[in-house]
């Protein structure tokens, strides 16, 4: 199924493969499959040799409390990611609107803010929220010390994603709206934004994956997310590799689910805009 889709994508971008190319692809497939299998075998063997597969590293996963603790962390991760995602969405939209408003000082300000949040590593922003409010005597809960910087970092990127979407809406749509007497604001709200958002929904949801990954530095502010709780378990059970492997799989599953959701949403956003 997915192989068929990649093939058709390649057909769309390049010419259809001829018999010689098909043979080369077959050989490449077999060779790479062997290489991948060998690599996996080497990793497992190394684990075996170094004793990482010993039951004492894995038995903790048979205990209910382990999973409950990880589950609590997962809830923390989801809460931060969703809140930060929602804030970033609104803020990103506002930054984009400000930048495209045509009011020079506002546009310049929004541009600087966008580029700043886009350019600064989110970890740096987290340190900022960790230290600066405290110095000013402001006591911020650890949830917000993590959520706000992650949201701000994402808002810069989302502002640019929205802007790309707005620029992708053909000029004629705007002209038609203006020609029936719609104001600039209504043209943006009724004609441009609905189409722009449709163009960028896949990118928006992909950005949510980045937000989820950004939350993993929660340990800086001691917020109990999945990563932080895993670290606690690592210390108490002295089982580093097995725990990191398991939560890596959990993160991959979360982001795989988000990607699946994005494809489903993109396929179901009502009408496809075809020109």
């Amino acid at each position, binding site marked *: 199924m997915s192989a068929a889709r990649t093939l058709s994508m390649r057909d769309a971008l390049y010419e259809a493969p001829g018999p010689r190319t098909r043979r080369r692809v077959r050989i490449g497939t077999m060779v790479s499959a062997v290489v991948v299998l060998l690599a996996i075998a080497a990793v497992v063997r190394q684990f075996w040799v170094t004793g990482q597969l010993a039951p004492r590293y894995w038995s903790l996963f048979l205990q209910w409390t382990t999973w409950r603790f990880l589950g609590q962390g997962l809830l923390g991760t989801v809460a931060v990611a969703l809140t930060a995602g929602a804030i970033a969405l609104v803020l990103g939209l506002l930054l984009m609107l400000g930048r495209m408003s045509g009011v020079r000082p506002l546009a310049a300000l929004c541009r600087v803010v966008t580029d700043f949040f886009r350019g600064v590593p989110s970890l740096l922003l987290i340190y900022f929220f960790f230290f600066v409010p405290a110095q000013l005597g402001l006591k911020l809960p650890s949830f917000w010390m993590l959520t706000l910087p992650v949201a701000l970092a994402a808002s810069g990127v989302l502002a640019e994603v929205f802007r790309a979407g707005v620029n992708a809406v053909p000029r004629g*749509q705007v002209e038609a709206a203006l020609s029936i007497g719609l104001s600039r604001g209504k043209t943006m709200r009724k004609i441009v934004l609905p189409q722009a958002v449709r163009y960028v929904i896949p990118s928006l949801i992909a950005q949510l994956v980045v937000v989820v990954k950004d939350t993993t530095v929660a340990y800086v502010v001691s917020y109990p997310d999945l990563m932080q709780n895993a670290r606690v378990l690592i210390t108490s059970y002295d089982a580093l590799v097995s725990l990191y492997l398991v939560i890596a799989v959990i993160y991959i599953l979360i982001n795989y689910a988000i990607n699946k959701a994005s494809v489903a949403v993109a396929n179901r956003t009502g009408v496809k805009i075809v*020109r």
Partner: protein
Amino acid sequence: MSQEQAAEKNVPVIELRHVDKHYGDLHVLRDVSLSVQRGEVVVVIGPSGSGKSTLCRTINRLETIDSGQILIEGELLPQEGRELARMRSELGMVFQQFNLFAHMSILDNVTLGPREVLGQPKEEAEKHALELLARVGVAEQAHKVPAQLSGGQQQRAAIARSLAMRPKAMLFDEPTSALDPEMINEVLDVMVELARGGMTMIVVTHEMGFARRVADRVVFMADGQIVEEGAPDDFFDHPRSQRARDFLDSIKGH
């Protein structure tokens, strides 16, 4: 000035006075003056790059002008804001690329202006829209989105969208240039019907048959200037300028 007063005083619906426009070094409109009376159908023809599309688009300020005046029923075309939006709402515009709102049904395309700009209630706007869609022959497509319609159907729906605003005049910017040949006539038929109904129209087009049959006046443009204007039969049979003779020769014989 109200419509009745304007009509009494014989004020042109659309008037351009000494309009000039540059694109950088390119002088796209050179001292263009034109006036269109109520109910008049003016067809603008000329070689590509002659400025006829630009001329059409300056009238509702989709293109700005450098100097000169544009008057709608004797009132200067506003430069911005609410006044400009109101004036635009009173002039229908039909584009070469149709420009139907891609994310809305045909019915919503037609009712958007009346509801958002004129403040009509939904039922009234939809009733009027369905009448107009029936008049241009696409009533069965009302609940489809633009991409599901043929080019000719889209353009007829776009005409209905403009008519829904009950405009004082209609501007057509090469309305059939993007259409497959078999769809040109269905759009021209709608335009002929409109002209017969007394609509004031400015039509930029390459359809010489339409110009001859429907126009009250043909305006020939070249290099940003109005070179010649006159009744269609005079113009097509006895063009006075060499430019017009060359142009008519170049499109003849197919």
